[in-house]
């Protein structure tokens, strides 16, 4: 199975297969999306115009037996930030593309602007069809994914855009169906790439891997022994590990409580942005936390038995061992309300809006999934409507009614709620707009956590919490004592965090392996062996990641970005955040050092 690129031209509705160029031999996931975008997309182009491209690339190990390795990257020029974007998600499509030997799908060109038809791309083994699917337009995504599995009973992966993307809204994410096809919520959410799908008149990319094969490692022995070591490390770690311990007590933190385990922890740390970043602690945090979801799932299961769909310890993609996803059930019926409720979503639609009613937060998440919105951006946008005086802070039902306006094509409020935090904030006269490069900040206040503020400011992605995981310790060999925190090495540290994160983003591995591999040297070695074993050669993770950052940064510079764009919104510098009453005081000079020597 030789690696292939599938190139789709929406100007003339044609497709062709290309060999993967030699220069991309070790590239996958984010490495491939960013390299292709940097090479083939004019950085000054209109992101919703003819010259932007969508690049869909599975991670390097997607479709193999490596644990938690089936992630998918979607890239392009972001209509929200105006810069390069990679958005990453689980779901079914990554693994299926891996099994089809498709390293990337490139979608380019554009139909005439008076086109009214909608299309979907059916990707199969050595085959691609561009189908007219106007009947898929204007549908809620829960219904759409059901319809697609009825039309294609092979249980394909489905990604694409919902109503928001079809209307070219800046907040539109790229949806992805979950394993059971019960939810479109595996979003490659950030940066408005759903609108790029919409601009190409594509609703869905449907991946059917019938007849596909598992990708084979070049050095099978190294891959297999690495995999075994890595699996063992993941299973016994208290964060990524098994659901219960030998005595039947809750063990693995992520399986039991999901990413939303962070709600209470961040609130106690005084770093949970509350009510549009006006405080660092939310009195209602416990009500919308991962523990509350765990308790609800158990309660409904006890009441309704198998009739309850609620669960935790749920994998977001086949082969994920970490399984941090969940399904929140309706309390009375046990039916599926949303899957899953992540920390970032519960924060954006909950704490940051002052909403502490779990069913309201869950309903808001479901609406975002149905309409096709990035929950982080949508939650911050709702906060703009609150601070702008349109609805009350903390009013869950009003926020729900506001989001529902998006279903009405003629509703201006509906369009505005899908337009993102910056546009909505400016329209509504809000001055405290928490964005960087036009993208809304996620669930960590940079005043209380300065390191994340450095990431928010400097990553080419715009305000992004996943861009600079603190995973460089092993790479830098600093697993020991590090002294002199005030030295220039801090900026170098941030760059290395971002580089090693970019590396993991390319491997197909979920970023959450980071929690295990730093603590467990065997886990780290096992993981690197799966990568090097698959490729048949050793790669330098730091250099690999740095190369990605170079290309992304260069694209952004050519798109017109300067150091001035590597800054937080002004209020973070002078409005103290309770309870610690701190401001973001990292100097411009320090921020500029991060990329100075790239």
């Amino acid at each position, binding site marked *: 199975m030789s690696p292939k690129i599938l190139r789709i031209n929406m100007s003339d509705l044609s497709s062709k297969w290309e060999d993967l160029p030699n220069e991309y031999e070790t590239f996958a996931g984010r490495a491939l999306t960013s390299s292709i975008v940097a090479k083939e997309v004019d950085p000054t182009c209109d992101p919703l115009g003819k010259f932007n491209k969508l690049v869909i690339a599975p991670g390097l190990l997607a479709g193999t037996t490596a644990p938690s390795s089936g992630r998918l990257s979607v890239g392009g020029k972001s209509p929200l930030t105006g810069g390069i974007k990679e958005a990453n998600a689980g779901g079914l499509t990554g693994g299926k593309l891996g099994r089809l030997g498709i390293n990337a799908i490139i979608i380019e060109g554009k139909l005439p602007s008076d086109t009214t038809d909608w299309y979907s791309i059916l990707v199969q083994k050595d085959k691609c069809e561009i189908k007219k699917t106007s009947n898929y337009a204007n549908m809620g995504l829960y219904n759409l994914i059901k319809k697609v599995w009825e039309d294609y009973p092979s249980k394909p992966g489905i990604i694409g855009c919902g109503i928001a993307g079809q209307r070219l809204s800046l907040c539109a994410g790229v949806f992805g169906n979950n394993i059971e096809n019960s939810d479109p919520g595996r979003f490659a959410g950030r940066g408005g790439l759903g609108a790029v799908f919409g601009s190409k008149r594509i609703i869905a990319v449907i991946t059917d891997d019938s007849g596909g094969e598992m990708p084979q490692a070049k050095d099978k022995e190294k891959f297999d022994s690495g995999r075994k070591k890595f699996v063992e490390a993941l299973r016994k770690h*208290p*964060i990524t590990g098994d659901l219960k311990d030998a005595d039947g007590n809750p*063990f*693995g*933190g992520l399986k*039991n*409580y999901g*990413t939303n385990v*962070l709600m*209470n*922890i*961040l609130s*106690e*740390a*005084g*770093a949970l942005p509350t009510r549009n970043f006006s405080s*660092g*602690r939310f009195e209602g945090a*416990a*009500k919308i*936390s991962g*523990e*509350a979801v*765990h*308790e*609800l799932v158990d309660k409904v299961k006890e009441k309704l038995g198998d009739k309850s769909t609620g669960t935790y310890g749920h994998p977001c993609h086949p082969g994920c061992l970490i399984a941090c996803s969940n399904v929140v059930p309706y309390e009375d019926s046990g039916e599926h309300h949303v899957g899953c409720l992540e*920390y970032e979503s519960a924060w954006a639609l909950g704490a940051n809006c002052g909403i502490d009613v*779990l069913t309201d937060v869950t309903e808001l998440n479901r609406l975002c999934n149905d309409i096709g919105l990035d929950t982080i951006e949508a939650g911050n946008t709702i906060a703009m409507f609150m601070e702008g005086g349109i609805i009350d802070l903390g009013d869950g039902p009003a926020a729900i009614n506001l989001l529902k306006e998006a279903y009405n094509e003629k509703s201006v409020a509906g369009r505005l709620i899908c337009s993102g935090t910056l546009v909505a904030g400016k329209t509504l006269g809000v001055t405290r707009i928490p964005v960087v490069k036009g993208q809304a900040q*996620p669930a*960590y206040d940079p005043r*209380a*956590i*300065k*390191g*994340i503020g*450095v*990431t928010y400011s400097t990553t080419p992605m715009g305000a992004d*919490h*996943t861009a600079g*995981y*603190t*995973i*460089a*310790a092993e790479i830098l060999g*600093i*697993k020991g*004592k*590090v*002294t002199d*925190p005030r030295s220039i090495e*801090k900026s170098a*540290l941030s760059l290395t965090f971002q580089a090693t994160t970019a590396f993991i983003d390319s491997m197909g591995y979920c970023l*959450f392996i*980071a*929690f295990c591999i*730093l*603590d467990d040297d065997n886990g780290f070695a096992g993981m690197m062996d799966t990568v090097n074993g698959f490729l048949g050669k050793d790669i330098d993770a730091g250099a690999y990641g740095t190369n990605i950052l170079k290309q992304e940064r260069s694209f952004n510079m050519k798109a017109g970005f300067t150091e001035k764009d590597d800054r937080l919104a002004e209020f973070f510098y002078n409005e103290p955040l309770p*309870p*610690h009453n701190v401001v973001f005081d*990292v100097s411009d000079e320090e921020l500029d050092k991060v990329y100075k020597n790239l």
Partner: protein
Amino acid sequence: MIETHLYGNLRSLVPGSKACEDTVLEKEFKEGETFLDFIKRLGLEMKNLGDCFIDGTLAKPEDVVKDGSRIALFPFNMVLLCGGQHIKGHGCTREDLDVNYY
């Protein structure tokens, strides 16, 4: 008085507690007591604990607990992850590296 907020399996220290509410245990203040002494008073050991906070700052065993403090105790499987790891400055969840990242 020390206002102790309990999470995860530590909520069992307060009978009838619910995960969707604040579980708070009030303990009398003891002059000069360290965080380690305090948790021992609750019948806990450091290995039972994840990331804990005294008035919103990460707690170290040798920290002296002041009167009126808010202490948050998280169990071993609840720690700062993701963006929260920048508070510690490194990605290790099981070790305490001596690094102050900003």
